[in-house]
């Protein structure tokens, strides 16, 4: 990618971040709450897209990493009374290590087998949450006590029951994730990853370690998903087995495909549309998950590039 194109992408990301920051001053209460959730889910989807969009690996088990972050942070707070920043850092680390282990095994498979293997590992994760109910409280889950709803950062304390505080923390996480990905993808290592996606055989022949490149991205992806899960658990104070379920593996896929796999901002766009749509539909019908099925099929049949992927193809070829 040319330097000019990179600069354009950087400006675009900064502009989007500026808009997101100012939204907190105009949105009504409930939308602030929704936007907070959306930004965290967008971080999750960004992590997913790092894998699907830039190395071409479709995981059906990313709920595993989201739930790992959620539980690693929440349980250390709940059982051991850790401070929130320490718990968060620990959770991101734990998710990265888990991703390293799972990736080292799962990346030995390709294509369909990779999808099924990741699906199976996530299923084991969901069952683990239920099996160790003595710690996780199973299906019922745990609510973090009021005393744990305050983050002590040394210089300042943050009250997580405050909606705008939560918004800005989620915003900060999203901004950090976008910038990390931007820099990573712009770097030499990032270009190896996309080379793997575009032609694995040729990349290998050129002397690059394809497995290492894949594993590196898998770990980054897992850590990012874990960070999203950790923030979700700590900000909203609830840990439950629902977060480890199959649906949480499908949602980032849906967000990414809709927004455009392999576009930096695609997952964010996908989340904005899908989460908003699901929330509105749930007021009209109990069968609102129908929309997940319909959107998936429509996308895969007629719109495989997603929103930003199409925008890139037609109008803005420089989009990352």
């Amino acid at each position, binding site marked *: 990618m040319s330097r000019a194109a990179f600069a354009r992408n950087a400006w675009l990301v900064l502009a989007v971040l500026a808009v997101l920051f100012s939204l907190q001053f105009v949105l009504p209460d409930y939308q602030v709450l929704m936007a907070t959730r959306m930004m965290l889910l967008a971080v999750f989807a960004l992590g997913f897209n790092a894998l699907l969009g830039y190395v071409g690996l*479709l995981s*059906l088990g990313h709920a595993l990493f989201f739930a790992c972050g959620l539980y690693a942070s929440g349980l250390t707070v709940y059982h051991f009374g850790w401070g929130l920043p320490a718990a968060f850092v620990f959770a991101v680390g734990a998710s990265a290590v888990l991703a390293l282990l799972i990736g080292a*095994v*799962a990346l*030995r*498979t390709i*294509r*369909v*087998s990779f*999808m*099924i*293997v990741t*699906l*199976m*590992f996530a*299923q*084991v994760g969901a*069952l*683990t949450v*239920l*099996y160790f109910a003595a710690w996780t409280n199973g299906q019922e889950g745990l609510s973090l006590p009021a005393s744990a709803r305050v983050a002590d950062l040394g210089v300042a304390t943050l009250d997580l029951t405050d909606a705008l505080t939560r918004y800005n923390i989620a915003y900060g996480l999203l901004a950090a994730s976008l910038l990390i990905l931007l820099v990573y993808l712009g770097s030499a290592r990032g270009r190896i990853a996309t080379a793997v996606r575009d032609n694995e055989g040729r990349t290998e022949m050129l002397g690059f370690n394809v497995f290492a490149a894949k594993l590196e991205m898998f770990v980054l992806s897992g850590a990012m998903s874990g960070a999203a899960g950790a923030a979700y658990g700590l900000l909203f104070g609830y840990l439950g087995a629902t977060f480890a379920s*199959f649906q949480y593996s*499908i949602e980032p*896929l849906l967000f990414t*495909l809709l927004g455009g796999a392999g576009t930096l901002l695609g997952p964010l766009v996908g989340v904005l549309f899908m989460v908003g749509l699901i929330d509105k539909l749930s007021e009209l*019908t*109990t*069968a*609102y*998950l*129908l929309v*997940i*099925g*319909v*959107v*998936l*099929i429509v996308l*895969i*049949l007629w719109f*495989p590039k997603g929103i930003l992927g199409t925008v890139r193809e037609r109008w803005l070829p420089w989009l990352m």
Partner: protein
Amino acid sequence: MGFGPYLLLATLEGLVQAAVLSITAAGLSLVFGVMRVVNVAHGEFVMLGAVIAWFTASLLTGHPAMGFAAALLVSPLLVGAVAFASERVVLRRLDYNPEATIVATIGLLYILQQTVLLVYGPDARPVDPPFYYTIRFPWFGYSAYKLFVIGAAIVIMGGIWFVLQKTRAGLVMRAAQYDRETAQAFGIPVDRVSAWVFALGAMLAAIAGVLVVPIQQAHYLMGADPLLLSFIVVIIGGLGSMSGTVLAAVLVGLSDGIISMMFSPTLAKMVSTLLVALVLVFRPNGLLGKAAR
């Protein structure tokens, strides 16, 4: 209760599970074998079969066996039709690209499940078994219908074997499985065979659904477990290998029955799922499968 009777009950429960599982997994295996696609919506066909069985049985008054027999006929036909249509409308257009097909069948999963929720509602509803009789062992009673399910599974699996090995249709399917291009060159309409195979796989799932509904009741979320277990069975048995599938179904059903009873059902599922993930990684063709083409 002593260990002997305990083991007997565990074995019976395991066999019933193996019976239902082998029919379900046979459908999944057939679709994978011939079409080389993984159908994530397979569990929903089991659910759809059970739900249609409820509708059929509740429309017919008279002896429960009438309703059950009708369901055994109507349910697979309707489910097969749904599958046929989705194959034509969706999967064919994707040219059976494996990844795209998985995503599409996930979509199909949600569409089927949520449509049933809309039409049938969120309740679990029972279908009467064709007959009601309890076999008395000295230590416990056991529903005779469950033993009937085991028998029915043996008959159906025999039927599948016969169709695949002894009929022209089976020959065509095996040819398509063995080598798509060559089969095409020999004038086999592989494209149309795919649609029929997809429908047939779904019909097997529907039959499993009908057989299980007098034991379990029909519920819109009942598809998840059969899907997971069939995956396990098909992968352990070797993707696309029918005899491997049956063997794995018996193995998984029995071990699940016994581990669940001795330890915990959650642990049983965890162990078999993890095992399967590892089989896929280290023995990609399954324990019994031949090398993939």
